[in-house]
């Protein structure tokens, strides 16, 4: 089972090299590697479920000296989500990219991005996290600029500079930790770290760097243009996974490694930033002219919800209610991943089929692409957090946590955010009802519509109805 861990990194990396060396059969090789990696992720999830947290020392050196890969419930779940989303997006991309030149440049970068995501979710060493963050940043930027249009290149450039700034801050934090505690391994660090100037400053630096990469509210300016101008499968993965990987690190640092260093004041600050992200993101999404901008601002808002959990998790004493809230957080993160990827893929179909994605004149399009509109509707249900989506369970726990700890502000913000989300989703869906004739068969572009539909259905139905194991898995800590 531990070989699955190294497989998760080695397989996409080998795939990347293979697609680089054999451009002609790149698509087949890429989708093949994707399937293999998804199987590895499944094996890992099964391994973690049966044997608890897994541990793999690379090069045979013990964790202090060498680098250790670790997988607990949280990372195994995120890895599974990542694999499913990227696999679906790969199938979509195989039909989406028509020009051969972009396609054979796309696949190596795509699989390198996948490698960095898996490496980041598995890594148990601080400096290794820095290198995976860099790999993630560079491959995401290269993919975002793939379109070659001026807007895409400008947005990608700003994204790269912000990413570099974030990584440098993260590295400064890592250096402080090494200076103070002499170790880089997360497991050893958790035992050794105690509140003090070193830990506070290092955590502040690392968190600021990561918040730049997660695009939390004041630092979110780079996200909408970058995600809106990138090609559809790329913006799907950017919004659903890349920003979430940085969020995963903040979660890992705050709740696991630096658990006893974190102060409620700092957590409330994060909560406030999250709350403003929810309101600002939803408000801008409501006014967005184009579907892609709407989806990008919706990402800013949805990440705000995730940060609302920090003050709750800090205030709740360790126990069943805290595990429920933590499960709610993960459920919200997973559902947003699937729903946002599905939404972006569906928007990509509309943009490709009708040449534009401006919401105002969407009327005709929504009728003759019923399956795409249905995917947008399902993804919308999951983004708003209506039942039977996984986000409903997530938001339920968020509200329950807010009531339990008496932090009513988060409750109000969640309620307003959900209503705003309803407004901007149904503003789009309102166009689905018009006089245009209904095509005879609902699914028009199979290879592109099925991935979008399945991802959206995963978020809106499967996670909502079959979500109970998520809580059981989360009990498996490192």
């Amino acid at each position, binding site marked *: 089972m531990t070989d699955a861990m190294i497989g998760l990194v080695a397989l996409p*990396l080998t795939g990347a090299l293979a697609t680089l060396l054999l451009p002609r059969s790149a698509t087949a090789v890429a989708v093949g590697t994707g399937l293999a990696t998804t199987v590895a992720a499944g094996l890992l999830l099964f391994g973690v479920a049966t044997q608890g947290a897994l541990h793999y020392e*690379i090069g045979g050196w013990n964790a202090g000296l060498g680098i250790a890969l670790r997988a607990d419930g949280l990372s195994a779940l995120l890895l599974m989500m990542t694999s499913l989303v990227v696999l679906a997006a790969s199938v979509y991309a195989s039909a989406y990219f028509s020009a051969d030149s*972009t396609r054979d440049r796309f696949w190596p970068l795509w699989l*390198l991005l996948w*490698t960095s995501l898996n490496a980041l979710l598995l890594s148990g060493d601080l400096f290794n996290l820095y*290198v995976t963050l860099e790999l993630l940043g560079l*491959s995401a930027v*290269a993919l975002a600029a793939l379109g070659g249009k001026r807007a895409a290149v400008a947005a990608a450039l700003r994204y790269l500079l912000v990413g570099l700034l974030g990584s440098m801050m993260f590295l400064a934090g890592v250096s402080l930790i090494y200076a103070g505690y002499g170790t880089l391994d997360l497991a050893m660090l958790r035992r050794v770290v105690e509140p003090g100037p070193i830990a506070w400053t290092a955590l502040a630096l690392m968190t600021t760097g990561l918040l730049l990469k997660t695009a939390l509210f004041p630092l979110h300016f780079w996200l909408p243009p970058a995600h809106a101008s990138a090609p559809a499968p790329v913006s799907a993965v950017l919004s659903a996974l890349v920003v979430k990987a940085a969020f995963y690190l903040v979660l890992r640092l705050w709740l696991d490694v630096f658990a006893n260093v974190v102060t409620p004041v700092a957590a409330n600050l994060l909560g406030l930033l999250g709350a403003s992200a929810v309101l600002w993101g939803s408000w801008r999404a409501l006014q967005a002219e184009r579907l892609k901008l709407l989806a990008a601002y919706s990402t800013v808002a949805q990440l705000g919800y995730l940060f609302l959990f920090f003050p709750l998790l800090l205030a709740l004493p360790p126990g069943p209610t805290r595990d429920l809230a933590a499960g709610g957080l993960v459920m919200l993160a997973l559902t947003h991943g699937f729903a946002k990827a599905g939404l972006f893929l569906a928007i990509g179909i509309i943009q490709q089929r009708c040449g534009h994605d401006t919401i105002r004149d969407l009327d005709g399009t929504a009728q003759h692409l019923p399956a795409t509109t249905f995917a947008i509707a399902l993804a919308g249900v999951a983004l708003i957090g209506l039942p039977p989506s996984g986000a409903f369970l997530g938001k339920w726990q968020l509200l329950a946590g807010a009531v339990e700890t008496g932090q009513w502000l988060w409750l109000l913000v969640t309620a307003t955010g959900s209503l705003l989300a309803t407004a901007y989703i149904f503003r789009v869906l309102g166009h689905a009802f018009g006089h245009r004739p209904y095509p005879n068969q609902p699914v028009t572009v199979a290879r592109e519509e099925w991935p979008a539909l399945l991802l959206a259905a995963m978020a809106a139905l499967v996670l909502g109805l079959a979500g109970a194991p998520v809580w059981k898995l989360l009990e498996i800590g490192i």
Partner: protein
Amino acid sequence: MNATSLLVFDGLLLCSIVGLAWASLASHDERRGVILFIAFGLLLAVAWGRLLAPDVALAEAAIGAGLSGALLLAAVRKQSPGSSRTHANPDRNRSESGAKVVLQWLVTLLCAALAGTLAWALLHALSSTPHDTLPRAISDNLVASGVSNPVTAVLLNFRAYDTLLELAVLLTAVLGIFALGQATAGYQPAGPVFDGLVRWLVPVLILTAGYLLWVGAHAPGGAFQAGATLAAAGVVLRLAGRSRIGLPDGFALRIVMAAGVGVFLLVGLTLLLLGRSFLDYPPAWASALILLIETAAMLSIAATLLLAFVGGQPQSAGVTAAANRQREEISR
């Protein structure tokens, strides 16, 4: 070199480093900023030497100051000198709006605060006894690592996974550059003096690269420094307007680009098949495997850094040759 003169040397060095950094960032002319930055990089290499980090000094000189400087200078060349000056000046001579000044002060205060907290935390860290668990572990396991230079041991054995991902980062950067389009046009063919210098310099650079690669096992050196030196040779050839700068074509180029990560993966996976964990070299084989990986990494690093300088997928040899001939007619 008693303590006081060392202190004087440190003070001088650090003042000039900070001075250069300030000058480079404060200058409004990009070309001047870049050149100051290269000087800053070189002095930095001296600082690493002073702090007994020769490997890093070599890398800083070759990559930090050398290649980054070359890349930056090439980028400056791209903007026609006129435009960069007009671009920078108009908003300078107009009286800066109040908001801009306030913003600058705000940012400066913010950065000062950051420096303060960083220093405060650092002093705490340095005041406590230095943690020696890791250095001791490295020296204990040095024999088993197959190389005697501890830095190479860490890079290629203890934390080999980091280096694998780092080579992947390099590959991603180049693939990203490829995705943006064709390579830039070459340079004017060099005059006789430069041409003579190139004729001597390139072989020496290649020889040094080979030496650096070999010596890395037991003395400062290694794949990165060797790769950078090899790339420097290519850059010199490129600056001399040569069309053939040592880069293979088509499929061979893809092989060389992928060699670094490829060999690393190959070794790791075969070890996995032999029942050992990923990248866990058997002690008997360790030094040979490390040398194999370093050679592939050197070629890969040289190719990728050179491609980054060239700025994209070089057209096939025929095209550059024709372009050169056509340029020669114009210049005559």
